[in-house]
């Protein structure tokens, strides 16, 4: 029962992150969305790894690796956002602003 709760929460978090990634334009918000998708996915994975009689250590190790990889990607993304804003004064991509019809 508890595992199902965690797995479905993970699934919902993935969906939530996908929504944020597509609907929000500020790049920091999109980075948070990526992290939500990742952590939802890991939660789902963790729940699947806990179904057997003993807790499977392989998903746990993969998740720790995944968390570190996600941090690396987030760090590079955050660095890019700041550098982009230094050059252009904006923290969203130009074509997205055009699509919105206004610049923040």
């Amino acid at each position, binding site marked *: 029962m*508890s*595992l199902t*709760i965690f797995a*479905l*929460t993970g*699934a919902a*978090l*993935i*969906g*939530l*992150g*996908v*929504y*944020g990634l*597509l*609907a*929000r*334009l*500020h790049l*920091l*918000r999109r980075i*948070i969305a990526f*992290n*939500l998708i990742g*952590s*939802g996915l890991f*939660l*789902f994975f*963790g729940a*699947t*790894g806990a*179904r*057997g009689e*003993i*807790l499977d*250590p*392989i998903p*746990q*190790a993969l*998740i*720790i*690796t995944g*968390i*570190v*990889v*996600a*941090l*690396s990607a*987030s*760090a*590079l993304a955050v*660095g*890019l*956002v*700041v550098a982009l*804003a230094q050059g252009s*004064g*904006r*923290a969203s991509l130009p074509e997205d602003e055009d699509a919105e019809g*206004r610049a923040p």
Partner: protein
Amino acid sequence: MSAALDLALCALILGVGLASMAGRGVFRAAIFFITYGLLVAIGWARLGAYDVALAEAAIGSGLTGVLLLAAHGRLRRLRAAAESLSRFNLPAAIAGGGVALSFGWAWFALPVPRAPDLTYALPQAGVGNPVTAVLLNFRAWDTLVESIVLLAALIGVWMMARDADWDAPLGLRYHARPSGVLASFGRILPPVGLIFGVYLVWAGAESTGGAFQGGTVLAAVGLVAMMAGIMRPPRVAQGAWRAALVLGPVVFLGSGLAGAALGAGFLTLPEALAKPAILTIEAALTVSIAVTLALLVLGPPDEGGQQA
């Protein structure tokens, strides 16, 4: 009772996650995300995955949160922190809902679990914590490449520096008053933090902990010490810091190559040597992880941020 607790926890996780996506302002989103990470860490503890709980709290929530907040501060100074208003976006909602539903379906469609049988492998792994055994022995190649991913991200972040700033110290300057609270905190924390960080690495061999979790604690200690003015932020040109960055991967790769040269095979740890080898690799990795993480948070060399 326990299902009710998990249900409440998950409702909280979802609510805070929703707030980080739908709420007003990027700053709030980052704060909610940090809270979210801590709640997820509790979730991991509920699932019995204590190593993951530590990693999520330290890295997923803590460090990612600090990165986001630091970036928000810089964006505010550049007047790029404001966010255009967001309306409800139906196509995005359909996509998100579809993804969530397919994972929900997949959960119920999964066949009975088939985890690999580790009973004969674990006693030969050299460490008692099965997660550490997977990370540093069974799937050591993953972990080696992962430590290099972290380093690649740092080199990438450095490439964001302005050319004129390349010789400047890393990150924006913080000036703590020498008699201020932060300075005293910065003096008290390092000894305690150092012991705790090292303990986490040591304990990781047999119980909860590990190089990444311990390295994160050490990185945090270093950052507090730098913010308190006890330690100076390094420059790219300082060779000792760059050597510390590569130490862990070099020792890891070197031990793998030693296995190949001695005939045991690439990344193979003979059972008798497994424990000391893993501890050596973890010690070196911890140093590199701690330095890399701290420098990632500091950001690229930046001269322009001089401020009181």
